[in-house]
């Protein structure tokens, strides 16, 4: 029996748009079965409106599933006897970082913002202090502890937001398009932190994104299309399906695209092409 931290069964969700007459209610998510093991690094890829953000909101009970079950750490969070206190405890285990860094910072001073979560958990002051300091250190923002958040760059703000989540010591952190509004440098910083959290701290990381470069760095990629799971596997397996990804409005890494185009043009190339060096080797072997 594997150790699943998140498990969903036949999960589905339909937005209630308040229009009673609308018969064309398309579910945002349907029949989703996902098992995520403790300590995994998973990317969830999908175009805008594919249902990937709905999934994130369900896992944290911001939305309640229309059908199906969700188990967090073995507990059924969709059952009727899941009380408000249980929700509170569950949220302390599953942290969430959102898209717009501005809209998740609460306090006017960086360290007070990081302290917000631990304060809500009712921890003793000395413990809060320890957690704030170590979290800021982990994201490399210790020097900015007494700064005002609105003067930071987008990437820095997002790192503060991440510190605020880490300080709650969650088992899982879900990044809901957390890099979409950042410049390339900010994106690098945030993805580096994701990887560090996963490898060094053993936190399960779920990165919801539409950037395939980011997805390619995860251990596992789940592609969601029209509310359903379309592909699920290692990046190598998933990105081999270039045509399928394109039909879903996504892209594969340029190397994969190039090799596929060459195959379409009649060349008989074999080999891996997910990373830059793999692509070079494959082409070099073929051309020399």
């Amino acid at each position, binding site marked *: 029996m594997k150790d699943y931290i998140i498990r969903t069964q036949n999960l589905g969700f339909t937005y209630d748009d308040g229009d009673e007459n609308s018969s064309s209610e398309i579910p945002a998510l349907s029949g989703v079965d996902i098992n995520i093991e403790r300590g995994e690094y998973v990317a969830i890829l999908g175009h805008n409106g594919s249902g990937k953000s709905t999934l994130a909101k369900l896992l*944290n009970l*911001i939305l309640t599933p229309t059908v199906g079950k969700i188990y967090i750490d073995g507990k059924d969070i969709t059952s009727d006897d899941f009380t408000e206190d249980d929700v*509170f405890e569950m*949220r*302390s285990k599953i*942290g*969430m970082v*959102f898209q*717009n860094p*501005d*809209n*998740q*910072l*609460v*306090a*006017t*001073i960086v*360290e*007070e913002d990081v*302290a*917000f*979560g*631990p*304060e*809500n*958990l*009712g*921890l*003793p*002051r000395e413990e*809060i*202090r320890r957690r*704030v300091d170590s979290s800021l250190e982990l994201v490399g923002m210790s020097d900015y502890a007494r700064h*005002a*958040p*609105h003067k930071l760059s987008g990437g820095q703000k997002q790192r503060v937001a991440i510190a*605020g*989540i880490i300080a*709650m010591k969650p088992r899982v952190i879900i990044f809901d398009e957390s890099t979409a509004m950042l410049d390339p440098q900010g994106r690098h910083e945030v993805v580096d932190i994701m990887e560090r959290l996963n490898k060094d701290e053993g936190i399960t990381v779920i990165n919801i994104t539409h950037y395939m470069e980011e997805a390619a760095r995860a251990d596992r990629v789940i592609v969601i299309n029209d509310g359903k799971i379309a592909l699920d596997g290692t990046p190598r397996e998933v990105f081999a399906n270039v045509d399928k990804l394109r039909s879903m409005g996504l892209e594969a890494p340029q190397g994969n695209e190039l090799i596929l185009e060459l195959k379409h043009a009649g060349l008989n190339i074999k080999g891996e092409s997910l990373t830059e060096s793999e692509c070079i080797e494959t082409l070099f072997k073929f051309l020399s």
Partner: protein
Amino acid sequence: MISDITLGQFFPGKSPIHRLDPRTKIILATIFIVAVFLASNPATFLLLAITTVVLIGISRISMKVILKSIKPLVFILLFTAILNILMTKGDSAPLLSFWVIEIYTEGVARAVMMALRVIILIVGTSILLTYTTSPISLTDGLESLLSPLKLIRIPVHTFAMMMSIALRFIPTLVEETEKIMNAQKSRGADFTSGSLVKRAKALIPLLVPLFVSSFKRAEELATAMECRCYRGDKNRTKLVKLQYKGIDFVFTFIFALIFGGVICLNIIPYKFDSFGLIYDIIFYKV
């Protein structure tokens, strides 16, 4: 650019006044305000004026800043002073009299005291509160001082949280306003010319997007706060706890003495006489 404006006129520093607990400062400011309103003779005003000058000295806020804060008041001060001088009738013979105008010593005295009262009030409370206390610690101080009101079910924590979130988002909104203004200017919108009605109408393309995005921000922030386990002040602890220190007691003691002084000085009856006001202020003997 408008995003450069500083909020609440707070000047960070390390002076003894900066280091006072915000609750102490709120209490001291209250004592100070009451004392200023009780003051009724030159001696008490002298005491309060000295107190204010000493406060300025301790806080190390520059005189320039203080003068700047009084500047907008100059017109009102002059206006009320002139009214006081012209309208007050005294018992003795007028100091000056020409045409229908008669100026009495009492009028001049009243005008000067009125002006002094306003200036001392503004400068004193600014030094104690806004100049030396960050808005956020002011909010913390208020929350702590008002916490007994929780017993009668007034949601003090909620109000304080609302205030601090407002403070957090003001710079963001200022920035956003500038951005939307530039975007609409790029579509030929004109915010600065035309009649009042036209200008008011020109604000719609600015205000609608601002409201829409504020609501969106509010919603997202609420979600983010919930995800960080916020549920009001139930079981909540704080990273920074307000604590009274020695300096708070020293200041409170001194202010108590000053307040006592004001009350004692006020008891001494005072009547304007022919020596004139300046003489009074300088040579008044207790």
